[in-house]
């Protein structure tokens, strides 16, 4: 359980290929921090708020960043985002939407719900690596979160 508590990067992604690509991109950028991949919105919220299979956790998890896909089974990404940003405990966690959708409506709604960044997953892996490098560099190394 310690391991879980030490999660620094939470990736919410139902597609294993995408998840693997993301992990590899992090790895390529030497961001080997503790990364947890959950496969749907429900699991993501269970993890964050210690419910379901994560009910044994006694404390709300606070990863350093959350990478959130929008198209998810059970509870979709925007709903997850809404939950996160409406709870004081999780509100300050930077959430980066990482999705295939370039839909204007998705982008607008995400920002309205308080997303910190919005990244379209590039098909070109090299560009993906670049994108991950940029966001990791900023959110993990430069961005100072208040200590709670």
């Amino acid at each position: 359980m310690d391991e879980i508590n030490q999660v620094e990067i939470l990736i919410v992604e139902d597609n294993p290929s995408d998840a693997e690509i993301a992990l590899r991109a992090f790895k390529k950028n030497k961001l080997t921090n503790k990364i947890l991949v959950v496969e749907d919105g429900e699991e993501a919220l269970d993890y964050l708020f210690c419910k379901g299979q994560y009910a044994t956790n006694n404390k709300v998890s606070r990863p350093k960043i959350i990478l959130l896909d929008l198209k998810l089974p059970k509870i979709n990404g925007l709903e997850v985002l809404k939950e996160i940003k409406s709870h004081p405990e999780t509100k300050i966690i930077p959430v980066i939407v990482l999705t295939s959708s370039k839909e204007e409506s998705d982008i607008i709604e995400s920002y309205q719900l308080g997303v910190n960044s919005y990244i379209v997953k590039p098909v070109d892996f090299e560009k993906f690596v670049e994108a991950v490098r940029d966001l990791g560099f900023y959110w993990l190394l430069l961005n100072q979160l208040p200590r709670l």
Partner: protein
Amino acid sequence: MSTNKDNLQFRIITLALLMVAHLIAFSSPDTLVAHNYSISYSTFDTILIGSEPDYPPYCIVDEDGQPDGFSIELFMAAAKAAGLQVKIKIGIWEVIKNELADGKIDALPLVGRTPEREEIFGFTLPYLKLHGAVFVRKDTKDIHSLRDLTEKKLIIMKGDNADEYARRMNLSEDIINTNTFEEAFQMLANGEGDAVITQRVMGLRLLENMENNTIKPLDINLPDFRQDFCFAVKKGNQELLNQLNEGLSVVIANDTYQHIYFKWFGPAIKAELSTEDIVRVALFIFFPLVIIMVVLWVLVLRKEVKRRTRRLRNEITNHKNTWHELTLKQEKLAASEDQIRLLLDSTAEGIYGIDNKGDCTLINKSAIELLGYENDSEIIGKNMHILIHHTKADGSRYPIDDCAIYNSFIAGKRTHVDTEVLWRKDGSSFPVEYYSYPIQQDEQVVGAVITFWDISDKKRTEKELLKLTEELELTVEKRTAELNEKVLKLDKSQQAMLYMVEDLNRITAELKNERRKLELSNKELEAFTYSVSHDLRAPMRAINGFSNFLLEDYADKLDQEGRRYLDTIKKNAIKMDKLITDLLSLSRVTKADLVYTTVDMQQMAKRAFEDMATTNEKQEFIFEVKNLPSIKGDATLLTQVWQNLVGNALKYCSKASVKNVEITAKDAKDEIVYKINDSGAGFNEKYKDKLFGMFQRLHRDNEFEGTGVGLAIVKRIITRHGGRVWAEGEVGQGARFYFALPKQL
């Protein structure tokens, strides 16, 4: 000649004394004057006058054939006093009278003044008054008054006062005209007529000359044949008239007149009283006494002459005044007559007058014209009912006893009629409206004046109106029927409308249903594109990503060819992604609602370059944007346009040595034309229609990569804004893309 009898006594004595005076060769200044009248030629004006051969004792010729007589002598005296020379030609009265009227001679010495002659001659003051008389054969028993002449045959010199008088007074129907009175008396004596009318003194003198004693004058008074004799000139020759008047006044005033009068009329009177007796008494009984008296008498005479001269002068003045007043009155009368005539002739209504027999007495121009005549002489004197009113409008005879005009004016009443017709000269008729007014004189109806006008137009208009009214009634009836029919039809169509409304309601319901379905399928479509954009991409990412992993992790186990294959796989995956992106854009362009705002095109074009150009390109390119006007449009879609066009320009310049993109705009009336000019590869103009087609490409992929969707998107966006898009270019010479957007939505 009223003075004749008054002065008889005086004259007898005077004549007697004058004779004595002659016998003793006593010459008075007066007698000398008498011998001075002869024609002499000097520097004086010369006038030509005419005289008659036998109108004794006024105008005659002497034994030598020279003109003589009282009037001649008096005229010569007056002419001399007025400073005129005179030549005399002899002619019969009718001829010389006409010659004066024609102006061939200047004056006549003896002309009786009559209304008829005043029309053509100018008259001096009268110097002689003569009375007319009726001469008959001594055996005539049945003529006692003028009335008795009616059935008789009268003989009168043509054109003489007497002739004019007889005709004016309508003395008889039967008048024979002769050239001279001598001829007239001869005819009377021969029994070729019943009476001669002429001036009494002249008649007696003429009979004496003719030594005729079978003819005598009757004691019938001819009140209207008391003639004033004057000198006459042609009417209008006022100058000569004035001179003669002056001369005449002078000779009357200086007693020359008196002298000439004695010369010509003395013997005639003496003859009546037996001249020889008087001479005898004068010579043998009263001679001594007379001698004594002569001296006294001359004195008395002179006094008397002076007195008479004074009186005559007064008379002349009176005469002159009277004459002047008369002239004035006459002029006024003529003027007012002219005015009345003018008034009558300038009236559009026809006006005619009739006497109490119904004969026309006057008629105006309009009436003559309306009745189709040329002049009034065709109408005057004719019976108007018989001439123009003889037949009724229906063609039946119109007896004069029924005539509305005749009956009313005889009864002294006025009448108004508008239902009759009048007949023209040519036998045609016209409907007429007329008023008839009786003319009354001394409470007696003497005629009537009829005012009339042609009412053909009025009648025709009435007829037409009647016809129109009938037609109108017919039309109204027809229209009413049509209207009824239409009302029926309307009722029917109202029913049909109700059915139609029901149908419409049904169709509306169906349409609503369809729309709901459409909305539903639109939503489905949206869900579809959404999932395409997510799900279709994931495999591409996997293909590309895992190819990459293979290349990285197992590079040593792959030969060159194996690595190339993997590269190809990667590239195609990327291309597939690009295609999906473009397709999504296109679908978005098609279905999105346009949100109009004012778009800063200058800013947007620059931004597109910033977004699309790589760092290298930003250094290599000369990119210019020149004053692009803002315009109303959808900001998101127009951004897409700029991105696609600028992206295109960048792409096709990539292989060119000069990398230049210039963006300008032109204000063209209703629209703004934006132009993107690049120095790139250009294109062949014959394919320009394909440029904006979906999936159409003019370049091979290994020259310039592309999906063939970008310009199709541009065209669709511009078209949705109501604008136009086109391009010009040449291979190797760059391309110019234009799009025009309307200024007003």
